């Protein structure tokens, strides 16, 4: 699907000095295989609060293939980060609890295995790169210590072997002079370098899946671009599946192969990234993409989504987007939970009259009891 557009840069190469990196193959080729490495089925994570039960993740399913980047897009409070924490079984309990579903990785259900086994999965088979590199790194330990900790636990290395592996991990994330940098403390590094160290910890044990939870929001544009490119390169080298959690459609356009759009704890649309941008069906997806100003051209007045994201306690059983929808629908249409329907191969939409313009076109796909 993703083909490398060979832009002509020959004439530029002559004038360029070696130090300027020009991306010649678009943004790297995807190396997606058909092998599904992670499968999440009807995952439900609830939080008990004094206002009621918050269904932060309300029965969502998705999968990640080897070498693929799945983008999970949504606003704050849509449940995208809780999804990630649930995979790692890091949801604070109480108040949170994973109340249902399964997470299949390497033939076992991560929600069923013991806490001890889970410890070896965390940072071993799945690792997570968090948003704020300053919070993810401990200021009183040096870099070698922090990168080494994960390697010590998962690969049982010691002494010079451990040191070599640490330097190797730092080299993989393109930290210049890794032997020297390994002895530095976090405050001695720039923001971009710190985020690379967090990345080095993430990839040190060759995980099958990396969860990247908005890893670039605190970085400058140029540093962000370099970091995204790096993630993509590592993915090509290691064939790792990436779950990229973000609210920025620019990152989705640049990084992701497939996209799942979340709203109020549910997935409202999943499709290939080009389908999401070219022919989105759910009103929320359309509105989100439309409300971002474009860099490439002078944008006229932006269409905006009216209203606020919903409060997550006591959500209606039906379509949570209905209160913000501009479509015509009756109360009956939003009484039931809308089903996720496969309208085209691999293009799934949460189908309801309140959220899909061409509802009638797809009505025949609806489960029989609704008809």
């Amino acid at each position, binding site marked *: 699907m993703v083909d490398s557009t060979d832009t002509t840069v020959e004439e530029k190469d002559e004038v360029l000095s070696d130090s*300027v990196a020009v991306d010649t193959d678009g943004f790297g080729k995807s190396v997606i295989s058909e092998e599904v490495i992670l499968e999440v089925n009807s995952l439900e994570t609830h939080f008990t609060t004094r206002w009621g039960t918050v269904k932060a993740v309300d029965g969502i399913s998705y999968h990640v293939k080897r070498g693929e980047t799945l983008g999970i897009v949504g606003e704050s409070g849509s449940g995208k980060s809780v999804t990630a924490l649930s995979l790692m079984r890091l949801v604070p309990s109480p108040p949170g609890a994973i109340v249902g579903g399964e997470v299949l990785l390497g033939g076992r259900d991560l929600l069923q295995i013991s806490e001890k086994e889970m410890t070896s999965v965390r940072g071993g088979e799945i690792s997570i790169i968090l948003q704020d590199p300053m919070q993810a790194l401990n200021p009183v330990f040096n870099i070698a210590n922090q990168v080494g900790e994960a390697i010590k636990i998962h690969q049982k290395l010691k002494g010079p072997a451990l040191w070599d592996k640490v330097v190797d991990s730092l080299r993989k994330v393109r930290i210049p002079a890794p032997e020297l940098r390994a002895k530095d403390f976090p405050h001695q590094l720039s923001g971009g370098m710190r985020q690379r160290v967090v990345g080095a910890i993430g990839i040190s044990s060759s995980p099958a899946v990396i969860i990247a939870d908005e890893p670039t929001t605190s970085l400058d544009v140029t540093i962000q671009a370099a970091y995204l490119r790096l993630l993509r390169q590592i993915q090509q080298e290691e064939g790792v599946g990436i779950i990229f959690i973000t609210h920025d459609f*620019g990152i989705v356009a*640049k990084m992701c192969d497939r996209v799942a759009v979340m709203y109020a704890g549910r997935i409202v649309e999943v499709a290939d990234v080009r389908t999401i941008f070219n022919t989105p069906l759910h009103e929320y997806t359309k509105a989100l993409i439309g409300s*971002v100003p*474009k*860099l*490439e051209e002078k944008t006229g*007045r932006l269409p905006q989504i009216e209203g606020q994201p919903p409060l997550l306690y006591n959500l209606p059983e039906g379509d949570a987007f209905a209160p913000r929808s501009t479509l015509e629908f009756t109360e009956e249409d939003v009484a039931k939970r809308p089903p996720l329907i496969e309208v085209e191969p691999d293009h799934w939409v949460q189908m309801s009259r309140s959220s899909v313009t061409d509802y009638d076109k797809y009505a025949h796909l609806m489960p029989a009891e609704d008809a």
Partner: protein
Amino acid sequence: MTTTEQNVTTGNAAIPSVPGINPGADAIISIRNLRKWYQVGGGFLGFGDKIWLKAVDDVSFDIEHNKTFGLVGESGCGKTTTLKLLLGLEKPTSGTIYYEGEDVTTMTKAGKTEFRRSVQAVFQDPWSSLNPRMRVRSIVGEPLEIATSMTKGQIATRVGDLLSETGLNPYQANLYPHEFSGGQRQRIGIARALALNPKVIALDEPVSALDVSIRAQIMNLLVDLQEEHGLAYLLVAHNLATVRYMCHDMAVMYLGVVQESGETEAIFNNPMHIYTNALVSAALPSHPDIQREEFLLPGEVVSPINPPPGDVFMTRTPLEVDPNHKWANERPPLVEKEPGHWVVETPWSMASDAGLKVELTGHKGV
């Protein structure tokens, strides 16, 4: 082509004309040769060389009536310091700010009060910029209590009006900030900024902390308010797409110095400086089929402490720098390369010389 020595008039004889300013601009705020240097070391008891952090170094621009001026650059480029200097939150080391053609520092007391009333601010983070212990009515009404002689009843009415104008409900005046979402809090911040009928509002990353679906609401609100009240904005942002949407004119800053400035569309249609091109090339695309070549400049942003005496950009350019060249030892000026489009031109700063010209529209596939 060199218009640097050309005598440009700005409509007001008292304001000096400098490169980078378009003649005949209908300026409400004119900033001229603004410098903010912080002493970070040296100079013990008056001896020895002082070490300066040059946060803002010789910056000049005009904010026109009813228009938006954008400042872009990476963290540490001095854009926020410039905004603070305009608001009077920092005292400039040298340079002048003119408000409606009048030097702010030599204004009478009444004039200064008027200036402070007319220039308001909206900040980036709506979670930390509103006092959590104050009700909305006090937050929005506070400027009215301090700066006007309005009665309590008049203030309450005005607060209600301001809230409805910014898309909130007047009854929400009795609530506390924590009872609002991020977008609503930003609306409260905007209502407060509007309270004294300002003419200029400084916007420091007004949407970057907000959710995507809310950003368009706030940007549209700002655009509407600008039209209704004839406001001028100074927008500090790092998101280039936001700048292109909101700004009429803009300046790209690097290490405290403006590298390229002019009309927003002129710059986006033809970015000339290597640094501008690097920023644009690194910006995220709006569609997966747009694949821009990224130019990663060698090195990282250098420290603004004792920057090079010549062109500050020379340590980042991919081209060769002649250490004996005039602009390696002396600060190069902005040159008007096409009408209303100014750029720092040195043998190593132009994107066309380096073959690093970014094509914004060229890669649009299906």
